[in-house]
């Protein structure tokens, strides 16, 4: 009788542990995938914005980067996405290099670029390639 009671007690500990863990697993399974880091666009669709740009970029070296997302907490994510798309080119978060990739929320926003840059080509959807304005 005592042994049966002990057995039940130990089984209760074991099942409590198992069930409480199983609840956490179930919650993980039931949750929908987390929000994507780049807003409403899927990452692949976002990367495709740069397909045409990549064709005119040099094969190696470093280019600059500018965007209009300084206030956006997801801003760095957009920069990394461009770096990922442009690899093996190094994308420097600066407007100093000779070539600068513009990654804006829209083509209209691209017009507010610094005066030391001239537009080489506007690829649409806010993707612009700039070059330094040489005196």
């Amino acid at each position, binding site marked *: 009788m005592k042994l049966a009671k002990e057995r039940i007690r130990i089984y209760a500990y074991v099942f409590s*542990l198992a*069930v409480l863990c199983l609840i956490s697993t179930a919650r993980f399974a039931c949750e929908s995938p987390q929000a994507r*880091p780049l807003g409403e666009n899927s990452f692949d669709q976002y990367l495709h914005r740069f397909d045409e740009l990549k064709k005119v970029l040099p094969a190696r070296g470093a280019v600059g980067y500018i965007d209009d997302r300084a206030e956006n907490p997801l801003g*760095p994510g957009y920069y990394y996405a461009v770096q990922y798309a442009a690899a093996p080119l190094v994308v420097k978060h600066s407007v100093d290099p000779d070539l600068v990739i513009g990654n804006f929320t829209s083509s209209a926003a691209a017009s507010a670029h610094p005066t030391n840059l001239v537009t080489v080509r506007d690829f649409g959807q806010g993707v612009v390639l700039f070059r330094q304005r040489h005196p």
Partner: protein
Amino acid sequence: MRALAAALLCLLTGWALVCLGWPKHTSLREQLLLKFSLSLGCGLGIFSLIFFLNLILAGSGTVLLATDVAVAGLLSGILFFRFRGSTTGPKPIYTRKQPARLTRILFFTLLIAFLSSMYGLVQRLLGNPHGEGWDAFAIWNLHARFLFLGRDYWKEGFTNLIPWSHPDYPLLLPASIAHFWTYLGRDSVAVPAVIALAFTISTLAILVSALLQFRGKDSACLAGIVLLGTPFFLQQGVSQYADVALSYFFLATIVLIWFHQATGSPELLALAGSMAGFAAWTKNEGQLFACALLVSLAAIGCGFQGFRGCVREVSLFVAGMSPSLVALAYFKIRIAPPSDLFQAGSTMLLKAADWHRYWLILRWYGKDFFLFGDWFLIPGTVLLVAFGWLIGRQRNRQQGSATWVSALTLALTAAGYFAIFVITPYDLRWHLRYSLNRLFLQLWPSALFVFFMLVRTPDEAISARQMAPSTSQ
């Protein structure tokens, strides 16, 4: 088809290395699940080293394929001659008869947890094939792209010009991914996703299969249920960060240390060294873990086996680590810029003298101890402490040395993380907030293994309660 061939070659290489590390008198068919789970990490580790060597020597894709086949062939050949005729192996270390009903229920609970987890993992991988969070494409997969697409200029990608890309992080994951991409001829997003999933499942498989040998089915199933009941582990598993891969290598090393203690086989210690080397080649925290393990082996080894035995053990362990350490040293010295965590000595000393930093880190350690797993209702750490207290500690002291080595290694690694936070150049709160939970996660599967090695199995607990009145009379 190419991907399948590459995966098979990778697994064959890993399998051969793992089996070579197993005791000589055992059969190749023994402990299949454990060996297969260890093969994944070994195979990827070797694949990454071969790819890195090929990059340095500017070899072509054909040379890479030839090297892969040669290494796999060589290891398999040695394996064939070494194990020719071996048909019997040791019985499982844990031989107590366990209540069939409880085992059945726990097995089905584990199965349900596994299937639920797989559903969630696959759903997330399909929803975010590039990983969850920025680190996947800002660090690990970006490095893989530099290795794969950079051709002769791949080193240019490892520069401080790209902020937060951590160019000093080692290359096990990026080089493995790039190796598979070379076979495929394109940078398929499926490769890092599948590798991430494989590491997650293999970590579970190592935990369960190792405990099955040492502590029987009930403890093995329970440990698996607890690991799958850690949502943060699953979430990080498909995030394509390196933390779960690192936790895999930590666990593999610790498990092999226990097997070494149980069998006395020196090959297992060398294999444990290989796993620790791969951990160091995966992420900087792995280097800390490898150092902690070396210190623990030396300190505990001296106590248990004397100086000579200790030197022999440490030498075997270092021999296993050496291929990864050589690659790591070359990468750190010749290619990677200095780590962003270390500043001028005077600045670090000033931070080390600031006791407010220690108090803040301690508070975060305390807080994340309860929260890091993203558990529902009750933290898994609290559940385990309560479970351990209720069910009691097993009294078998045969595994003493391995217990102390594992516990000291995990404690030293956690203390090392603490020290890094003390001197971090970044805002301390920010740094703790975005990394401490992942650091705890790296140690979690190993901590679970050690925990279930130390507490009684359910049948031991029942027997102990049954004995208690008679011994008190």
